[in-house]
C-alpha cells in the first residue's frame, strides 16, 4: 500500500504494509538509520521519534498511523547539530557507545518543548522510558538541565522543528 510520509520536512511515498512499524520504514525503506532498533516492543525507547511533535516509539507506530503526520527524526531536529539538546549532549560528553542517544535526545527535545524548565523529577519521569546500558544517565540529567538553561532552548531555533 502506498503511504506518504513527511519526514524532517521531506515527503516520501513508500509502498509498505499498513502495519509495518515506522521504525523499519525509516531505516530500511527511506534509509534514515539514525533511529535505532532496540526492543521492538516499546520498552527501551531507543527508536524514539516525534510524531506531530510528540515523542513516540517508532517500533510501535504503524505506517498507517504515521502517514500524513509530521515525522521528525534525529537527522531532522537541527541543521549542523545546533539544537540546544544536541549542543548540551556534546558539551557534557554524554554518549558512550551512543546507540541509545538519538532516542534519548528525541525524548529530551520533546520534554523541553513542553516543559522548558523541568524539575529533576520531571526529567527522570520523562527519560525513564529510555534505557542506556552504558550508564550515561547522570550526564543525561546534566545535559537536559544545560539545554534547558540555554537561551532559546524552548524554540529550538536553527532547527526545522517548531
Amino acid at each position: 500500500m502506498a503511504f506518504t510520509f513527511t519526514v524532517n520536512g521531506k515527503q516520501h511515498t513508500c509502498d509498505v504494509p499498513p502495519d509495518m512499524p515506522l521504525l523499519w520504514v525509516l531505516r530500511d525503506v527511506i534509509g534514515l538509520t539514525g533511529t535505532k532498533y532496540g526492543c521492538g516492543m516499546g520498552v527501551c525507547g531507543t527508536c524514539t521519534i516525534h510524531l506531530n511533535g510528540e515523542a513516540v516509539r517508532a517500533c510501535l507506530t504503524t505506517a498507517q498511523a504515521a502517514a500524513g503526520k509530521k515525522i521528525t527524526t534525529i537527522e531532522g531536529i537541527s541543521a549542523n547539530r545546533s539544537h540546544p539538546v544536541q549542543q548540551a549532549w556534546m558539551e557534557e560528553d554524554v554518549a558512550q557507545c551512543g546507540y541509545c542517544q538519538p532516542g534519548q535526545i528525541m525524548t529530551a527535545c520533546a520534554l523541553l518543548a513542553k516543559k522548558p524548565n523541568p524539575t529533576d523529577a520531571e526529567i527522570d519521569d520523562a527519560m525513564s522510558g529510555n534505557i542506556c546500558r552504558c550508564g550515561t544517565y547522570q550526564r543525561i540529567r546534566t545535559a537536559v538541565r544545560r539545554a534547558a538553561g540555554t537561551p532559546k532552548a524552548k524554540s529550538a531555533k536553527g532547527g526545522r522543528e517548531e
Partner: protein
Amino acid sequence: MNPIQNLSRREFVTAGAVTGTALVLGCSLGFKQPPAVEATSATGPEFSPNAFLSIGADDTITVTVNKTEMGQGIRTGFAMLVAEELEADWTKVKVVNATANQAKYGFQGTGGSGSSRSAWEPFRRAGASARVMLTQAAAKTWSVPESECKAENGFIVHSSGKKLSYGKLVEAAAALPVPDAKTLPLKNPKDFKVIGTRVKRIDNPAIVDGSAVYGMDMRVPGMNFATIVHCPTFGGKPVSFDDSKAKAVKGVRKVVQTETGVAVVADNTWAAMQGAKALTVKWDDGPHAGLSSEGIRKMFEEKGKTPGLEAKKTGNFPQAFEGAAKKVEVIYEVPFLNHATMEPQNCTAHVTADSCEIWAPTQFPNFVVDQAKRITGLDPSKIKVNITLLGGGFGRRIESDYAADAIEVAKQVTGPVQVTWSREEDMQHGWYRPASYHVLKGAIGADGACLGMMHRLVAPSIGGQRQPDGGKGIDGMAGIANTQYGFPNFLAEYVRANTGVPLGYWRAVYDSQNGFVQESFMDELAHAAGKDPFEFRRGLLAGSPRLKGVLELAAEKAGWGKALPKGVFRGIASHFAFGAYCAQVAEVSVTDGEVKVHRIVCAVDVGTVINPNMVEAQMEGCVVYGLSAALFGEITIDGGKAVQTNFHNYPVMRIKDMPKVEVHIVKSEEAVSGAGEPGLPPAAPAVCNAIFAATGKRIRRLPIRLDE
C-alpha cells in the same frame, strides 16, 4: 614486553608506505602473532609494518585505531596519544577504524580493559616519529639547524618566526630515514598538553546527529535484510522447516538454513521478522534440553561440598578456623546474566565465489576472519572484515556467532545481506555471565583479629566450554586468588562445575561475582569481629598501598562515619582488577522493601590517566552495569532455554534508579591500567553492605530480593 626494544628501522613504515602526498607512519605493537592470525595478513607471511598515522598534504592527520570503539572512548584516547607527541592541531585529527589484519595492526581483540595499556607507547611513538621527521624536513627545506626548529600545533616553527604546516612538509619528510626507535625522544609526562586533559569525544558530533554508523546501520548497494531464528534450546540445530507461510509474507525473498538456525531474507528487516514468525521449524534440541536453573543450582551445591583445586594458600586456614573464637560459614550465589547490549546482534556480509567482505560490530575481528575462513573456505587474502561502531560490547561481541550467521546466509544469496537478530533472539542466545556458587568460611580470634578466610568458587569455566572434556585446572579465580588483603591464613579453591549454558566474558568477567562475594563477606567478617567495615579492611591492606589509598579516599570523600540523613545508610567495598584499584561507598535507604541507591562515591587509581573525563564515564558506566545486575539481573534456565526474552522481563537500571555518582581519580604516574571494568565489582557489595547497615539483612544471593 617493552615495545622500544622491538622497534627497528625496518619495523617502521617509511618511504615504502608513502603514497601520493601522505606520510604514513606506524610502529610495532610488540605483540607476538599466533601463526593462524599471521596467515590472515593480506600482505603475505613476512612482517608487514602497520600504519597508525598518516598526514595528508591538506594537513589532515588520520589516526588508524586498531581496537574497537564500543563507548569506552578509545578512538579519542588513541588519537590523543598521537596528537600529544606529534604536537598536532587537534582540529585536524581524524580517526578511522582499522580493518581486520593482525599482522599489520597487532592484536586487535578489544577486551580485558586492555586497549589503553596496549596503545600507550606505540601510538605515542608513532606521533613522535612523525614529529621528528617533520622537524628534520623543515630544517632541510630552510637549510637551518634542526635545533632551531620546533613542532607547534600542526606547524614546524623556526626561531626566526617562519613556519610551515605539516601538510606542506609531508613529501620532504617522507624522503627521510626513520629515526632510531631507541633514541626517539618521548615527552616527559610533566610536558603533556593533551594527555591528562578532558578532550571531548571525537565521535560526539556523529552520535548526536544520528550519522554514526553502527553494525545495523551499514548500507551496502544491493543489500537484502534478514533475520534468523536459532534453536531455542542451547546447542540445538534445525532438522527441517516449512517456509510456505513465511514466503507468503510480502517482501520475503528466500529462506535458508544455517548450522544453528533458519534465516529469512527479505526486502527489509520487518518483512524478514514477519517471515520468521511464520516459519515452522523442526529442531533437534540437542543434549541440553533438560537444563534448568534449579538443576544447575543443585549440581553446584553438591560439588561445593568437596574441596576444589587450590588456587592460593597462605598459612593454614583449616587450623585457624578450628581454633577460631568466632566462625562464619555462609553460601553466596549469583545467576547467569545477559550482556543485553542496546544494539542487538547483527552483521552484514557479501560472499561471492572468490571474495568475502564483512561489516561487523565486533570486539574480536580475528574471530570473524576465522569464521569466514571456516564457512567460505576462501583464502584469507580474499576476506575483508570492516569494523563498525558497536552499540555496546561489554564482552558480548568478543563472540562471533552473529558473524557466522551473516556469512552463512550471504553464502546462500546473491549480493550483500544484513542479518539482524530480534531482541528476543539476542536475549535467548547470549553468551551468559556464568552463574556461580560460593562457599565461604571466616575465622575471627577472641580479640576480634581476622585470622583468615576460605573462598571456594563453584562455577562453570568460560574457557573450558569449547574444550571437548570441559577443560581442566583452575579458572575464574580473579578477584579471589589475587586478594589484596594480608590474611594470615587464606585458602582459595576452584571447583569446575560446567553446564551446557553458553558462557561469555561479561563486563569484569569473574571479578563481577567474585568481587561481590569477597567484599560482602569482608563486611560479614568485620561485623563478626565487632569492627568498623572501613577500618577492618584498612587494617589488612598494609601490603597494598594503592588499594588502601582508594579505600581511604572513598571513605574520606563520602564522609565515612559522619551523620547521614535519617533512613540513609552507608556500605563500603574495594577491589583490585584489570590493573586498577577501586573503592566505593554507597548511600542507600530501604523503604517498604524498596531499595533506593542515593549516592555512590567512587575512588579509583588507574595509574596514568589519558582522559579523566572518560575514566569518570567508565566508572559511572561500571556502577550502572553492576547495579543493574545487583538490583534486577537474572537469566533463568528452563528446558535448556533462557526464560527471559526482552527488557520487560530482563529489567535493567533506568534513569529513575540512577544514584549520584561521584568519581575521584588518584593522581598517579604509575603505568596506564584498565578503566572499562575495575569500577564494576565494588558497586554491588557496597550497596548490599549498605542494605545490611539499613536492615540487618545480609544479601547473599543476587539479584537483591529483600523478601527472600
